[in-house]
Every structure is written in C-alpha cells, then in structure tokens.
C-alpha cells in the first residue's frame, strides 16, 4: 500500500484542561473520502482544526505527507497549505468581497494567471456548486446554504489535492446536497484528491465515504475506524451500529440487515 496521506498518531485534543478526545489514531489513504462522524459536540470540528494545524494536539502527532504539522518549518507548512482546500463550519467567507472575489483570493495568492483567467475560473467553480450568475453578490446577500456552497467553491479554487470540509451539506436541500456529494466524489476521482469531511448526513456518508472514524462523546475517544458500510454491519460497538443503522434504513436497505432483531 502507498504511504498514507494523513497519519494521526495517539492524538489527545484539549481546550485548556478540558480534554475533548484522547488517543486518536488512524490513517487516511491517498484519494480516500474520509468521514469523521460522531454526535454533536464530540469534537469533530476540533479534530479538523487539529488536522489543518490551527490547533496543537495536547499529545501525539499529526503527519501530512509524512511531515509533522507541528515541527514543520514555515516553508514546509506553506508548501503543504498550498495544496489544501478548507471549508469551515460557519462558512468563513470574506464578507467584504463578492463571491467571485472570494474564489479569486487563493488564485491571486498562489498563481500568476491574469485577471480574465481568474474571473473565468471563479465563474466555473461557482457554476460547479450551482451558483452561476451570483458572481457579483456579497456573502451577506445570499442564503446560508448558498454561503456554504460558495465557501466550497473557494476551497476548490486551486484544484487542491487535500480537502477538508466541515459539514458542507448542513442547511442544503436534498437535491443540492446530492449534487454536492457528486461533486465531492468527482473531485476526488478526477483529481485524485483526498477528502476529509465532517458530516451527519447518513445518506452521503454511505454514498461517498470510503473510510471513516467514529468519535464518541461519552468515552472521549474514537470507537471505530473503517468503511461505514462495514461498521454499520459489524462494528464491535452498539453505539456505532445504531448511529449508522438509521442511515441504512432510510437508504432503503432490507430490515434484515439491521444488527439488532426487531
């Protein structure tokens, strides 16, 4: 097997003395669509912030492309960050720039393309997330779901090879959410990008994820790692199976596949 894209080794995350999760350990392979699951407040966003280097683990190491994020030189970090695309749970759009300008920011920062080319790329990326025609709008003048999608357009502006999405489909209608899933899978396939995604949407977990980790709020550690279908069927933990069972049901799987007799 090729070297993993991301390695999380014995990581403990804490805010001050308040430990959020401890002893996390898993790897994300190149080209994987890796889902971080778990109940609300269990530390998914926190884990994502650790993986992009915004927060420092209280213990353990996080390696991306074999480089430890917290002992990397600024130069190494910059090279890594150039190939990342990130969306935040609250959007994180620059509120005083139009959508097209928002998408243009990473392009202006990291490429030598001229303005017309950058405008074309921004228009294409916005069309990809279903926002064609909204180039000149400001974030405050569009809906919450549209802001989410615009943030995603900005994240994929540079055709990154590593993407981090925090609940990209929260607040979207089922159709937009389906198209978003298709888009994520397409990006991952066509560009061979690795995607790390926090989501609660069981339908999208089953349709796009190739691997996943389940964080538990009660025990404050990861309960299981593996492809979601496999976890749904044969996780050692009832919590994980239950979490995923409702998805299997709503996705129309036969009732007999459920782990507990009814």
């Amino acid at each position, binding site marked *: 097997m090729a070297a993993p894209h991301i390695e999380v080794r014995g990581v403990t995350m804490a805010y001050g003395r308040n430990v959020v999760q401890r002893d996390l350990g898993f790897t994300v392979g190149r080209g994987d669509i890796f889902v971080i699951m778990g109940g609300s407040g269990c530390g998914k966003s926190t884990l994502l912030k650790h993986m992009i280097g915004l927060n420092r683990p209280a213990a353990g190491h996080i390696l991306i492309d074999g480089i430890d994020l917290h002992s990397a030189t600024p130069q190494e970090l910059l090279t890594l960050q150039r190939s990342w695309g990130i969306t935040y749970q609250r959007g994180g759009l*620059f*509120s*005083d720039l*139009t959508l097209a300008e928002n998408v243009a920011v990473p392009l202006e920062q990291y*490429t*030598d*393309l001229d303005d017309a*080319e950058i405008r*074309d*790329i921004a*228009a*294409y*990326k916005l*069309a*990809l997330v*279903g*926002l*064609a*025609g*909204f*180039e*000149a*709008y*400001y*974030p*405050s*003048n569009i809906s919450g779901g549209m802001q989410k999608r615009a943030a995603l357009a900005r994240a994929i502006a540079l*055709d990154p090879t590593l993407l981090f999405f925090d609940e990209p489909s929260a607040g979207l209608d089922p159709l937009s959410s389906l*198209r978003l899933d*298709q*888009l994520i899978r*397409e990006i991952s*396939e*066509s*560009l061979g990008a690795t995607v790390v995604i926090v989501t609660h949407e069981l339908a999208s977990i089953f349709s796009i994820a190739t691997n996943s980790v389940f964080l538990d709020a009660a025990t404050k550690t990861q309960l299981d790692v593996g492809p979601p279908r496999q976890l749904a069927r044969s996780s050692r933990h009832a919590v994980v199976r239950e979490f995923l069972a409702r998805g299997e049901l709503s996705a129309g799987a036969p009732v007999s596949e459920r782990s507990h007799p009814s």
Partner: protein
Amino acid sequence: MTLLTGCWRGEATLPSVTELRTQFEAARSEQWRFSAGDSFEWDSRLLTRLLPIARYCETEQIELDLSALPPAVARLLGLALAVAPAASAAPPRRTLVDRYRAFWRNLFSGTHASVAFVGECTLAFGRFLRGGANTRGIDILWFIQQCGPQALPIVALISVLVGMILAYLGSVQLRQFGAEVYVADLVTIGMVREMAALMTAVIMAGRTGAAYAAQLGAMQANEEIDAITTLGISPIEYLVLPRMLALILVMPLLYLFSVALGLGGGALVAAGLDVNLLQFINSAREAVDLTDIGTGLFKSLAFAVVIAAAGCHAGLLSGRSSSAVGQATTRAVVHAIVYLVVVDAGLNILYNELGI
C-alpha cells in the same frame, strides 16, 4: 472536430473561447467534437473553456460531443451545467446618480432616525422607571464595571497631564504680572467647568462608545439582534438601555475623579512656581462654588447620553459584514466627538446666558 493536445492545465496559455468557437464555425460542423490527443493533460482550466462553449451549444442547439475526452470532464461539466445561471441575478450595482440620491436620502432619513432613536430611548427609559422594561439590572452592573473602574487608569493619566498643561499655560502669562498665585484659580476653573468633562467624554467616546458600536454591530452580523426582536424583546430596552444607563451613572463620577487628578497635576506644577500646596488648595476652594461643579456635572451627563446614543445607534444600524462593523465603529466615534463639541458649545452659551 478539435483535437486537444498538450497541457490544458496549471498556468499554461490556452486559446480563448472565441478562438475555439471560430474554429468550429469555420468548419461548419453540425456536431462539435473534442477529443484528447497526444500527452493531453487537463484540470479546471480546461473546464473554463468548455463551460461557455457548452452553454453556447445549449442555446444554439448544437450537439457537443465529449465522449473522446476523459469521462470525468463530461461529468464535471454536467455538474457545472446542472443549475442554470440565475437569470435575474443582476448584481446590485449602483450608478453615480443612485449614489447621489442615496446620499441625500440617507442624510434625511439618518437625521430622522437619530431623533427617533433618542425618542425611543426616552420612552424605554420611562418604562424602565415604571419597572416595565426588559432591562436586566445585572447588565447595568456589568457595563458599569466595563466603563467605570476599568477606565480609571487612562482617565487618571490624561487628567493629570491636562491639569499640568493648564498650569504651565497659565503660569507663562501670570508670571509677567507676578501673579503666579492665580495659577490655582486657572487650573480649577478650567478643569471644573470645561476640561474634566470634555476630556473624560473624549476618552469614553473612543473607549466605550466604540465598544458599544462594535458589540451591537457584531450582534447584528450574527443575527443575535433578530433573535432578540423575534423573542418579543425590545433591543432598545434589552441592549441599549443598560449601556446608556451605565454610562450615565459612571460619567459624573469619572468627572469628579478627573477634576481631583487634574488639580493634583496643577498643584505639582504650581509647587515648581513656589506656590505651596496649602496656598493652592485655598485659592482653588475660593475659585469655584457648587454651581460651577453643577455645570460640569450636567455637562458630563449630557455627554454620556451623546456617547451612548451615538455608539448604540451606529451598532444597531450596522450592516452584516465584518467591514460594516468596522464602519459602524468609526461612525460611532466620529459622531460622538462631533456631537460632543456641538453640545459643549451649546451648553457654554446657555450657561453664559443664564449667568452661571
């Protein structure tokens, strides 16, 4: 048919959409077909060319054939075309005439809104006095803590320095007549009737007025004010009143504090002019009476209302973006300082007419 060869990615120079279109139009083909040639590489740059062409083909009902390209290209294009461009999505652009009109409209509606705002605050204050307002006492205490004790160091520093400046300024003139003793009178009258109230007000406009505007502006951006309004709670009672009352309660105290320290600063300078402390205190006591202190206290009350109103009003009217919050803060401080000086001038004229 167009054969795509080489590099269609990264920062390569690509033929423009128009060039590609003329190629097809020159060939008069019914079907526009792209195929991948030697060492063909692509990324989003390719799609920026294909997207306008695909849209054009849709409207002109030309068949576009991408089957000879990597399948992901067609799938990505499909996603980009899945939602038709928003037709009426004309950007809210403004012409010069619009701006000119908006300027005057804003000027009038702005003045109107300010007056209405002060009116609303007064009504809310009336309800508060009758005990029927949604104003929490704990909030008032919190804001008193914020704008009172925490402002003491900076008020102290400025007051001492202003007292010293007044003393120096006076001593240069007074020395010519050998009347250095009157330096105490000068500092006392200057601080009590004017400088203490004005300087604390300027400090508080920059410190507290700006903070009020930023707090309320951020709450506006975060939809907190919407939440408060839809809970049936008046933002004026819940947010503005505690801030304003806190400032109204604190400003007179800061004024007295500032007077005391200003006199201290003056006494320091006076000591250098051989006016000893006892002499200084005696002439200071004779220089002003309670009426003078009353005029200063009244000024500080008026200034408190002006600062809190300017800050809160700017915050409530703030837009929802981060730069709008910045503009609201700027507006709060600028308005507060302009109104401070205007109100100060007005009060001085009034005092003069009344002979106090």
